[in-house]
């Protein structure tokens, strides 16, 4: 599904955030990325929806070499990759409903269909009663869950999450991870960057560990 072949990323400042990464993620896999702060986790994830481009090497998604993707096709790539951001990236002047509906509106989904799917997604993250609230009136954890609802509402085959539980209490973190496992069970490929080693261990999935931009560890989970 997703392949990194000799990928390096050097940022304009000259800093090399990723060094010669080789990684293959199968369809339907659920992979955690860990590593210290500044190890390159976010950078690695950003390469998949083309938020950054590698300075060397190739990234292939579904067999398509992203370096060869026409500019006009990028939006369609991004529609197939749901992203949950570390800093939520919500629109603070729109209610929760509009935020979650945005990917569907952009994709041109018919009006009636939109309502049904938005409510289903909000229900999944337990925010159905906050539909009309503005993100500003939500707690950090609630905003995080709005971001998750928006990422999954268009049922993308790939889901990327950058520290989705950074601001959640342990109980809620476990719940969200359970949600991810549910998505995983229906065939969604997941890549999750996280610091929460304890939680990861408990889930028993594949874990890729980065250090200074290199893969230093990659072990399949016990449950897999």
């Amino acid at each position, binding site marked *: 599904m997703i392949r990194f072949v000799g990928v390096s990323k050097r940022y304009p400042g000259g800093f090399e955030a990723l060094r010669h990464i080789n990684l293959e993620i199968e369809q339907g896999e659920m992979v955690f990325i860990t590593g210290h702060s500044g190890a390159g986790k976010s950078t690695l994830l*950003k390469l998949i*929806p083309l*938020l*950054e481009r590698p300075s060397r090497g190739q990234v292939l998604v579904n067999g398509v070499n992203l370096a060869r993707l026409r500019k*006009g096709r990028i*939006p*369609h*790539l*991004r*529609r197939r990759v749901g*992203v949950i*951001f570390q800093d939520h*990236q*919500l*629109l*603070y002047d729109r209610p929760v409903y509009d935020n979650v509906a*945005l*990917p569907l*509106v*952009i*994709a*041109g989904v018919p009006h009636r269909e939109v309502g049904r799917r938005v409510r289903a997604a909000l229900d999944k993250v337990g925010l159905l009663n906050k539909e009309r609230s503005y993100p500003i009136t939500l707690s950090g954890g609630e905003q995080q869950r709005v971001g998750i609802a*928006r990422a999954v509402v268009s049922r993308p085959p790939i889901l990327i999450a950058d520290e989705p539980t950074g601001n959640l209490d342990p109980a809620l973190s476990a719940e969200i991870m359970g949600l991810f496992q549910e998505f995983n069970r229906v065939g969604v490929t997941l890549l999750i960057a996280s610091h929460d080693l304890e939680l990861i261990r408990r889930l028993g999935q594949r874990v890729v560990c980065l250090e200074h931009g290199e893969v230093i560890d990659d072990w399949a989970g016990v449950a897999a």
Partner: protein
Amino acid sequence: MAAGNPRARSNRLRQSVDAWGSAHLRALFASLGRLYRAPLPSLMTAAVIAIALALPAGFLLMLANAERVVGSWEGNAQISLFLELGTDAEHYRALARELRGHTQIDSVDVITPEAALEEFRRLSGFQEAMDLLDDNPLPPVLVVRPVSGLTPAEVDELVGDLQTQSAVEQLRLDQEWLQRLHGIMQLIQRGIWVIAVLLAVAVILVVGNTIRLDIQNRRDEIVVAKLIGATDAFIRRPFLYEGIWYGIAGGLLAALLIEVGRLLLGGPARELAVLYGSSFSLQGLGFVGILRLTLAGSLLGLLGSWTAVGRHLAAIEPR
């Protein structure tokens, strides 16, 4: 093959046309809604555009009115035809009748040599000398008043016509100050075009600037939309519509301003007209004028937003 099935193909075509249309409608209403939600700032921008549109349009209107006035003055300018000495009464009366039939001539007065001599005698102080004359040395004169509202060119033509009349010895048309006025009006017209260009540029800049700041303002939204897979066209559309809305609102407001201006200037203009005994009233834009103004506004608005969108949207990329 399915692609070969004309029914299926037309269906798919219909669907994509529908999607395209509904996307446009959404952008149209979304941009309108955005302006509506911030009515005061939107109105301020529209007001600036209105002022910029109203000025050249108002000037052109004023010039058109001024040309009408000057035209009517030109019509008032009387033309004196000095006929050949000794032209007999029957002849010049016939000529006067003929000229009265001319469509561009309002009235013709005849000054007979006798009447002229009498007048001359009264005024000149040569009374004794006159009494000694056997013959009347004065020619008959026809005073021709053209219909009002002729253009300078038409007056020139009329003068040419009259000059070719066989009995006409000499012709006089006093319009030195009209020539000066024409010179001034040409200068003014040239000025108005300079101003119109300047103000069209101003409209483009104002709309462009407003849209640019609006784009920067909604940076987050654009970034998020791009992140989620919005196409450039999807993001661009509401801004372009916004520019058009600004232009249309500006155009309509400009028409309003011009009408208000007409009311303000109408008073003194009428006074002036009364002073010169003409029944002049300032002419307004009319429906076509308002339409043209609105169209010009929306085009300039589109142009302004287009420049801003082209330059600034590409610069915003999700990181």
